[in-house]
């Protein structure tokens, strides 16, 4: 099945998660909101999943809301805050589009990022200070880890500034890319809301988790049967939620060990490429990055062409985000970081995960070196 280096796009499901969810796709099919014994069994599994997620995230079970994924969580935090509280939404320029497009949609303010792709703390403070009584800042959304370049935001510093200069604002973090590599118990206490996507940590697609802290009220996006304490209506995706909880538990238990193993693989990947071809820029210094992401830019080539040759060699990677048509778009993240187009045209994201092996790294190095040489000849 080739060399898969696109774990940040989606990582394979954990075997434990598939095993845990299977009964609920098969004979345990009751709706957990029902009032009979069969329904109560589903409800029990759902409640256990919620407890497990809360334990892993360091929050109360009642603060866990199951959603359809990261995009829904991001939308809920931003649109839900502005619809409930009015005011202005704020986010940095390198956010995922699920945050950025929401903030733009409600005419919010976009804050600068620094050259590693995390929020410019001085600019954040400046923006928060300019808020007025008529136009208070009601929600600030800052990603914990950047999905493209892998840089880690110092959330403690962000929280300090937001609490000081916009004490009434909801602080939300898109932690979708953090789950695999960062102990979320260190982040959850700093924020009012946090969103995750299950398929980024070995759960299924179409399931997410949003933490909404007690006392922080967001307008729901979806109305209906009042599930999730009226915060998110719709019949529970029981099997998906159970798999999500299991995947998160496994991720949490293996995180420390996996981080060490994957960091070694990633560093070897980049070091060996750099040893064999010139004109390679490591976009963000390693100390600012999560273990799973290698983001490098090659001078003198175009990543659409590079990705085609890698694809032909059965090496699966990605560049910037793709638009609805599937075309590569110039990266808004690299543009916000101030990376020159001559570099960003040749940007490549190689993302590693729990199934990545030494043999895959060997294949990837040789395919990348040969593709780069072909394109530069």
């Amino acid at each position: 099945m080739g060399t898969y280096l696109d774990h940040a796009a989606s990582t394979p499901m954990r075997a434990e998660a598939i095993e845990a969810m299977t009964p609920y796709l098969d004979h345990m099919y009751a709706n957990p909101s029902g009032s009979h014994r069969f329904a109560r069994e589903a409800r029990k599994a759902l409640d256990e999943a919620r407890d497990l997620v809360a334990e892993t995230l360091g929050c109360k079970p009642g603060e866990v809301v199951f959603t359809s994924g990261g995009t829904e969580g991001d939308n809920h935090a931003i649109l839900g805050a502005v619809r409930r509280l009015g005011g202005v939404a704020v986010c940095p320029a390198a956010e995922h589009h699920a945050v950025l497009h929401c903030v733009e949609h409600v005419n919010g303010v976009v804050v600068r990022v620094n050259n590693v792709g995390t929020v410019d703390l001085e600019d954040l403070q400046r923006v928060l200070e300019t808020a007025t009584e008529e136009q208070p800042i009601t929600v600030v959304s800052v990603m914990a880890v950047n999905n493209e370049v892998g840089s880690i935001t110092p959330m403690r510093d962000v929280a300090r500034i937001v609490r000081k200069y916009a004490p009434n604002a909801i602080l939300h973090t898109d932690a979708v890319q953090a789950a695999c590599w960062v102990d979320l118990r260190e982040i959850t206490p700093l924020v009012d809301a946090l969103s995750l996507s299950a398929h980024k940590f070995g759960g299924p697609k179409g399931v997410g988790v949003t933490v909404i802290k007690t006392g922080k009220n967001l307008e729901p996006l979806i109305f209906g049967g009042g599930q999730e304490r009226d915060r998110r209506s719709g019949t529970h995706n029981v099997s998906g939620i159970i798999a999500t909880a299991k995947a998160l538990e496994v991720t949490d238990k293996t995180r420390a060990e996996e981080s060490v193993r994957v960091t070694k693989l990633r560093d070897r990947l980049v070091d060996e490429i750099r040893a064999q071809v010139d004109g390679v820029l490591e976009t963000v210094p390693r100390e600012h990055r999560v273990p799973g992401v290698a983001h490098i830019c090659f001078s003198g080539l175009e990543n659409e062409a590079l990705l085609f040759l890698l694809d032909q060699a059965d090496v699966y990677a990605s560049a910037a985000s793709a638009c609805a048509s599937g075309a590569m778009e110039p990266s808004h993240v690299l543009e916000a970081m101030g990376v020159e187009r001559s570099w960003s045209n040749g940007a490549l994201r190689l993302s590693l995960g729990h199934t990545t092996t030494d043999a895959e790294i060997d294949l990837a190095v040789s395919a990348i070196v040969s593709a780069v040489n072909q394109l530069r000849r």
Partner: protein
Amino acid sequence: MKVLVAMSGGVDSSVAAAELKAAGHEVVGVTMRLWGGESDTGCCSVSDVDDARRVAQQLNIDHLVFNFSDDFDKHVVAPYVQAHVDGITPNPCIECNRHLKFDRLSERARLLGFDAVATGHHARVERDDEGTFRLTRGADDAKDQSYVVHMLDQAELAYTMFPVGHLTKAQVRERAIELGLRTATKPDSQDVCFISKSGGRETFLGNRIPFRKAEVVNEDGTPAGKVEALELVTIGQRKGLGIPGGGPKQYVVEVDTPNARVVIGEEASLYRKSLVVNSIVWSDAADIDRLRSQNDVLVQSSAHGAAIPATVEILGNQEIRVLWAKPQRAIAPGQSVVLYNTTNSYVLAGGIACPDSEKVSLQ
């Protein structure tokens, strides 16, 4: 051979891909994303990409999307806008072929190790006894597109395939139906892809350049009316000139951009004896010398216009004068003018019409 086929999401390029696959080639489909702005016509919309991808899946070939929107802006859209400012009538689809399909895409294809680029144009590449590649008209007279791909020189012709050029449009549709392709009954695209049907050229240009009001005058200089946008006036135009009806039909016979003046006159004033064409691309550069001794040609100056008898005078490697056998209506500057051989079978050269054509009678 390893062939990269440009798939717009239309029926011709769908069948082109199918023909290549059936002939045993290793085929990869690619859809070029060219226009990022709003549009409701033409190719390259998300739904067209969906169609191209689905056809590729049905044919079991890989499908890619290349984003060439920066190049499209630079080589097609920006010059299109500037041409209107300069009083020239551009042909953006031909410039897209010149700069995107048969330059940017073929360059990328070479880099990626493909042996040829293919498109769904109705034209043929044939090789004569001397080994020269000839861009030959498509088998379907009514659908022939050799005019819009006239800019291919020997190097590009050697690298280009037109797999549906030997088929009629009806046969193309039959093949698509036989294969169950979802594009089988899709209508032909007619319009410029970046101009929306609802807003038209006027809205598109109006959002990008200020329109200049212009005086409409008779040939003797007497005032006749006014137009709101000089940039939208083309030679030969009859409507929208703000002149009263009645009397002989009046045509735009001259667009005087520097002086913001539109000259109108009767049809007879539109006729010209000759036409200068520059930016010539020769299909085979050896034809320059051949035409010095035997200079009869046929000349086509619109996508589906007739090929008109004329002789040519070589003014330079990239410039010629066309001397019409019989006077012809003036060709708007900026239009593509393509020379065919005397049996009207293949392209000799093509270029862009210049403003300085010689009037029939200068009294």
